[in-house]
């Protein structure tokens, strides 16, 4: 049994750190910009959150959020930022699949593919649960 190449693992860690940081920064910036737009256009009494209504359809799905954000609506922009945030760990897992493929570590390619499939199921098909 060979031990994993430590140097290779470390390089993979470095790229992963950059990936995570960029995802969070991009998401936070979009949420902030969206928040400013939202507050500027929303000089109304606060929404009553005591009663649960659920978000409208256009703020629930990937395609709906993209459409809302494209029209520069505050809530749509915030939701796009949140979507990028949720996608950041998914991107990290996707990157791990590639990194393990590169290392020809088939066991871990399979393991990360399973995690990736579960995440994709949640993001694209989870509403049916």
């Amino acid at each position: 049994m060979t031990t994993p190449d430590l140097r290779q693992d470390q390089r993979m860690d470095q790229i992963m750190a950059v990936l995570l940081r960029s995802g969070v920064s991009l998401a936070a910036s979009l949420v902030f910009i969206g928040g400013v737009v939202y507050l500027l256009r929303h000089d109304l009494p606060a929404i009553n959150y005591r009663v649960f209504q659920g978000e409208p359809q256009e703020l629930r799905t990937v395609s709906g959020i993209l459409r809302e954000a494209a029209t520069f609506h505050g809530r749509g922009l915030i939701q796009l930022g949140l979507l990028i945030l949720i996608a950041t760990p998914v991107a990290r897992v996707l990157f791990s699949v590639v990194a393990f493929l590169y290392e020809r570590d088939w066991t871990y390619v399979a393991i990360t593919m399973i995690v990736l499939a579960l995440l994709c199921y949640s993001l694209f098909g989870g509403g049916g649960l």
Partner: protein
Amino acid sequence: MNTLEFTLLVSMGSLLAGFLGSLTGLGGGVVIVPMLTLLFHVDIRYAIGAALVSVIATSSGAAAAYVKEGYSNVRVGMFLEIATTVGALVGAAVALHLHVSVIAIIFGLALIYSAFSSLREKSEQRTDVAPDRIAAWLRMDSSYPTDKGMTQYHVRGVPLGFALMFGAGVLSGLLGIGSGAVKVLAMDQAMKLPFKVSTTTSNFMIGVTAAASAGIYLSRGYIDPGIAMPVMLGVLGGSLVGARILAGATVRTLRLVFAVVIGFLAVEMIYNGFAGKM
């Protein structure tokens, strides 16, 4: 209260939660749900959605730093993420069918556990751990930086750790928390990983677990931009500031105070759950 006041108050509360959460190691997510439900009278489903999002933000931000330093064990994390993501999907699916009072009571119990575990003594050095067949096959044994340079360690108890991680995932999906306390328990106690490796690997995994449940919460309409925006920005900002402050003696006192506050919040959530006031 208008929208601007609500946003400012929630972001200030979240900033404080993120700051204390990162300083004490408890995570900012645990107090977000009680804060939103008890103080701002937000429905628990919106509160869980917002907390999940903030958990992803702080976990990914902190994981970026830890991964670089070489503490977290990526293989252990990836393997156990199968258990946490399945658990998170189950938890999020169950949450959609549970009464909010039941969720409040379970939340209170989980809060008490995490407050209690944050006060427990930490074990650090482990040199007596023998190699394990499953861990060797999965190539989990690794090394981490200590005062004496890179130190090798062995991993054990993979099946038990895996089972505990499933539980951590269910709690995360059900309550919108990172379940860091249960994750550390699985790796530190069951799998005998060094404590520093356990906490950083747990942090690394929290984002993936939370993302699995967040997808379901988003498509179910539980993530409201008006609430999630101040919570996410506040917790993230607070945790970044908290991470820059060195841990010292005052942190121990602070941890005790924070644990007591969480204990009170837990009791109130359980009471409200039983009284049907959620």
